[in-house]
């Protein structure tokens, strides 16, 4: 039989086998003795079978349990989001490792050299790993090994990922001498680092624009107040129409305006300048080493760029306030206050001009949305002025100014209505009507934003009807401001006498009949009577060059 070190546990069974062999070698075999012996061997063989069966059963139960535990442990390791791997003196990664290792290294790592896996562009680090691992496996004392490992880097970069590494010495086989293994526990910190970087970024930056924020500026003020930064300039900038854009077009458009303005500042300033979003619509630009001339140059750059872009984006303009100091008699904080004052002073001076620019850009935007509006407001304004001359209103300059402004801007709320609805050639659905009917309210908010509360009230009432069946509030009779009542008649006349996306124009006479039909319901009956009685005079104005009366 084959010699084996575990054979000793089968000494009894081997002895029986040897006895049987020896017996077979006997020359004379008595039949009864033979049967007796055969019977003994058969019994012992039966016992051997029983024992073997039992051993197999026990072994099966145990291996099943071991397998179960192995799966359980592997599950824990594979779901721990950590890489566990071991290697011995040959530096080859051993078979058992967690699946996170495969993810971190992006390949199968069994039998790979650990130095190849940890290889980076850092030549010194690569050499340090090689030397340390070699030394560790040559040392016998565990303390000395651990001390040696403690010098290795704990944060390394593997395939652009930041990985934290723990080094451990383990013994994988208690029967094998020199079975020391090095175990690496790898934790991918990339996501955590990203979050930390993001948190750090957000703590010093404005999330919307990516510019620095107020916290950042305040934190660096002490570092900026040095002689080498003199002369030092500051520009405070304030967007002129953010509120209007927010109110009329919604905050999403307002946010876009803020971002676009930030881009203008970034493009207009020098690389060394620090640009921050100071508040809602305020920006602060710090210009170290910039004298008054340099500061003015930057301001001019900003204004030029805003002027260029204002046609593309309604409300893209800002008022600037710049100050320059030649010494540190004043600190940066008081300098910011000074820039703020200059900016507000400029805003006051520019307000009329700014307001006009905003109105003009809204009008242009309106006309570009729907061709039917080209010339409409100008005609309404001209007819309304002639109409008003027949009323007491015509003698009140302020009222006339209000009337003109309403005539110009009565439709302006439609700038926020989807262009498809404004140009729709078929009749509008109920939902579409609801959207369109929002325009007086949008106009109201816009007028409020540019500081025109009386205009706002009239704009809100432009679709109200004499009998109270209009919208949005169902005002009736004298509750409707007179300028709104006038404009609603004049506007209706102009719409009827000009082609619309869903309606062909009518003649002057047909239009008057149509208006008369609505006397006392939609329109103020007295005003309408006056309009109809004087329609030829009122509507007989010189058409605009690009336009012809319908």
């Amino acid at each position, binding site marked *: 039989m084959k010699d084996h*070190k*575990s054979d*000793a*546990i*089968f000494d009894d069974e081997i002895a029986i086998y040897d006895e049987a062999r020896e017996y077979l070698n006997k020359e004379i075999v008595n039949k009864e003795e033979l049967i007796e012996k055969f019977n003994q061997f058969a019994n012992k063989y039966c016992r051997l079978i*029983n*024992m073997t069966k*039992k*051993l197999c*059963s*026990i*072994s099966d*139960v*145990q291996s*099943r*349990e071991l397998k179960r535990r192995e799966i359980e442990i592997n599950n824990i390791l594979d779901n721990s989001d950590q890489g566990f791997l071991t290697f011995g003196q040959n530096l080859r990664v051993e078979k058992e490792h967690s699946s996170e290792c495969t993810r971190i290294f992006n390949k199968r790592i069994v039998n790979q050299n650990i130095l190849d896996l940890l290889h980076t562009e850092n030549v010194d680090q690569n050499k340090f790993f090689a030397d340390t691992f070699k030394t560790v496996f040559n040392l016998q004392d565990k303390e000395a090994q651990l001390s040696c490992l403690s010098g290795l880097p704990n944060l390394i970069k593997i395939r652009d990922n930041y990985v934290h590494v723990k080094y451990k010495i383990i013994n994988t086989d*208690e*029967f094998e001498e020199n079975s020391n293994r090095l175990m690496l526990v790898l934790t991918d910190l990339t996501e955590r680092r990203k979050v930390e970087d993001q948190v750090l970024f957000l703590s010093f930056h404005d999330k919307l624009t990516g510019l620095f924020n107020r916290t950042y500026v305040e934190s660096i003020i002490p570092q900026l107040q040095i002689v080498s930064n003199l002369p030092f300039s500051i520009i405070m900038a304030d967007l002129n129409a953010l509120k209007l854009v927010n109110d009329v077009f919604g905050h999403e458009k307002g946010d876009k305006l803020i971002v676009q303005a930030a881009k203008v500042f970034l493009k207009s300033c020098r690389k060394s300048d620090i640009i921050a979003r100071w508040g809602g619509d305020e920006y602060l630009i710090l210009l170290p080493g910039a004298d008054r001339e340099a500061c003015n140059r930057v301001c001019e750059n900003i204004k030029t760029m805003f002027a260029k872009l204002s046609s593309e984006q309604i409300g893209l303009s800002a008022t600037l306030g710049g100050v320059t100091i030649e010494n540190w008699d004043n600190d940066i904080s008081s300098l910011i206050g000074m820039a703020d004052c200059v900016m507000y002073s400029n805003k006051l001076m520019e307000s009329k001009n700014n307001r006009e620019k905003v109105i003009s850009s809204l009008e242009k935007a309106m006309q570009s949305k729907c061709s039917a509006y080209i010339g409409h407001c100008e005609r309404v304004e001209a007819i309304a002025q002639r109409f008003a001359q027949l009323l007491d209103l015509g003698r009140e300059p302020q009222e006339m100014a209000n009337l003109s402004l309403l005539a110009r801007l009565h439709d302006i709320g439609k700038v926020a209505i989807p262009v498809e609805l404004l140009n729709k050639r078929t009749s509008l659905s109920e939902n579409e009507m609801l959207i369109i009917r929002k325009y007086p309210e949008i106009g109201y908010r816009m007028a409020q934003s540019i500081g025109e509360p009386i205009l706002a009230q009239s704009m809100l009432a432009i679709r109200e009807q004499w009998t109270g069946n209009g919208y949005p509030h169902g005002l009736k009779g004298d509750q409707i401001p007179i300028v709104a009542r006038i404009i609603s008649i004049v506007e209706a006349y102009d719409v009827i006498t000009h082609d619309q996306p869903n309606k062909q124009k009518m003649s002057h006479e047909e239009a008057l009949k149509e208006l008369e039909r609505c006397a006392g319901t939609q329109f103020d009956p007295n005003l309408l009577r006056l309009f109809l009685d004087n329609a030829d005079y009122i509507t007989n104005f010189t058409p605009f060059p690009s336009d012809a009366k319908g």
Partner: protein
Amino acid sequence: MERLFLKESKSTPYVDFDADKDILLIKGQSYPENAFLFFKPLLEWLKEYLSGKVGQDVGFEVTLTYTNTSSSKCIMMILDLLEEAADRGVNLNLKWICNEQNEYEQECAEEFKEDYTFPFEIVLV
């Protein structure tokens, strides 16, 4: 007779065969590289001890959480010795301790117990 006492190691169980108290204990895991080398002294000690215990009470307590196959064979050799001793009139009482949460331990204990006729009690703790 001299007491046989072996400390538990990673791969061998704690053994305390105390002839004076007639209490024999095996406790732990058994997966030595050479099982027979470990169990041979135990078998020899038991053979001698049990030969003088006819008509006397002997308590044996076994707690084995894991045994490799060679160790299982050796344990069966011990159980065979106990069976023979019981047949000769030794009042043996074997308690095989199992963790009640661990079905696998109980299953193994049942396998070991099969075919023996001396008092062999599986105790769940």
